[in-house]
């Protein structure tokens, strides 16, 4: 593992994460993220060949409740906090482009 993190990598990651970075931010984050990833190289000193990964401390399994109707959050109270809502729904700008 080596942190050959490039400016293009950071730009790609920012796109994936839906963030816009200025040129100065790209430079700064490339340097800072590279530094953090370099530090992570100390994991290479460990023999991890036969080690099983742990994603969760206590091996969580799915938890299900009885399939009965229970009260949920009041729709109007939830929508009252939305940036835009109409007719009992969240409202967003155009999702699909014009037909070609």
């Amino acid at each position, binding site marked *: 593992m080596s942190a050959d993190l490039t400016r293009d990598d950071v730009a790609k990651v920012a796109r*994936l*994460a839906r*963030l816009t970075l200025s040129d100065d931010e790209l430079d700064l984050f490339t340097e*800072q993220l590279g530094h953090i990833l370099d530090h992570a190289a100390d994991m290479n000193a460990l023999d991890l060949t036969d080690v099983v*990964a742990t994603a969760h401390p206590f091996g969580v399994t*799915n938890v299900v409740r009885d399939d009965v109707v229970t009260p949920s959050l009041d729709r109007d109270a939830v929508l009252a906090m939305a*940036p835009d809502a109409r007719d009992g729904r969240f409202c967003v*700008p155009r999702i699909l482009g014009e037909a070609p």
Partner: protein
Amino acid sequence: MRSARQIAADVRSGASSAVVELEASLAAIAARNDELNVFLHVDVEGAQAAAAAVDARVARGEDPGPLAGVPLAVKDNLCQVGVPTTCSSKILEGWRPPYNATVIDRVVAAGAVPVGKTNLDEFAMGSSTENSAFGPTRNPLDPTRVPGGSSGGSAAAVAAAMVPLALGSDTGGSIRQPAALCGLVGVKPTYGLVSRYGLVAFASSLDQIGPFAASVGDAALLLEVLAGHDPRDSTSLPEPAPSLVAHVDDGVAGTRVGLVRELYEGADESVTTAVRAAADALRAAGAEVVELSIPELGATLSAYYLIAPAEASSNLARFDGVRYGLRVAADDVTTMMEATRTAGFGAEVKRRIMLGTYALSAGYYDAYYGQALKVRTLTINAFARAYERVDVLLGATTPTVAFPFGTKTADPMAMYLNDVFTIPTNLAGDPALSVPFATGEAGLPVGVQLLGPGRSEARLFAAARVLEIADGRP
């Protein structure tokens, strides 16, 4: 300020009232909040109604609960109905949750009076509260220094005697580190002991809610109220809450304590000296103290700073301008989301989202996130082996005492290294607490950390109580 236990006893007996205690708390907040920037929102009307309700229960002859009339501060990443909840982020500014976190319901049912929401590093990402979008919180013990973070506002609220109790969250040390820097007791409970329903998620396999208090007894009292199974959190342990207050004075006779080299080496000399003195104090009280080395802990910082950002990059995907908080208008939905997130998140949050996105991305997943999960396994196994030999582990909470503003903001890695002693136990899911012991540089408090296996909180409180007494706080 009187202890939470004393306030609750006085309110229950009628010697005081919840309204009187609230007025004292609000006066203390008014006196210093402008200077220290502790509370982002003080819920005067809601607190007055809650206090009046407690007093009405007393008047009717009902028991208002073990926290009767105790003013309590709430970290601003916990949802409370109708009370602004920002996570110290512009992306949530103005949002008022339509539901309560389970911990809010529990403390209110126990008679506590939530007085307001405290400042934090944005989305709990930081170790100094300098990452708040609403300005840093100052350390009440020395306002030129940070209170620690991310729960810096909750720590400062107790340290400034604005409230006797506060709620925080701890993903990599965010309760214990500010507790240490502000001279308080702070507890990261066993993963699953306290419900996270209503906690805005940062890294879900690590986050835990826990108490801040000025004393071990008060911290045990609050955690006993918080703990217990909650069907609304699927990671909540399905078992009865443990008895904690009853064990605070159990002492440490016969307790096997491991002084862990990797949990204090490299700290400032005054911190190391305090840890060694704490080991001596435990020995003098009847504990059997041995020196241990757990070399696997050396790589936990790296693992944490891949795992936590990876989970954060996923959790924070929900802040997209659709259902709550900020929206920056645009003609199409993708541009709207990108503009909203770019304007709404601060630099550290962006850094961690990108780090996590990178660690999870095709081609890098195995090298970074996958490796980190294996280090997590090694960490869990290493702790388990240590707990075959000893009951409790002892180390430092932080490498230094509270540091001046701006000294670590330029270099993210320098800030992350603050968490080197607190992170291992989050990866393992085990409990740990910080208790003040001795003083360090500039007369500032030092926090000593006690760690134990899952569900060992009662034993940790008993050991912390021994240190509290040895440090002159009977």
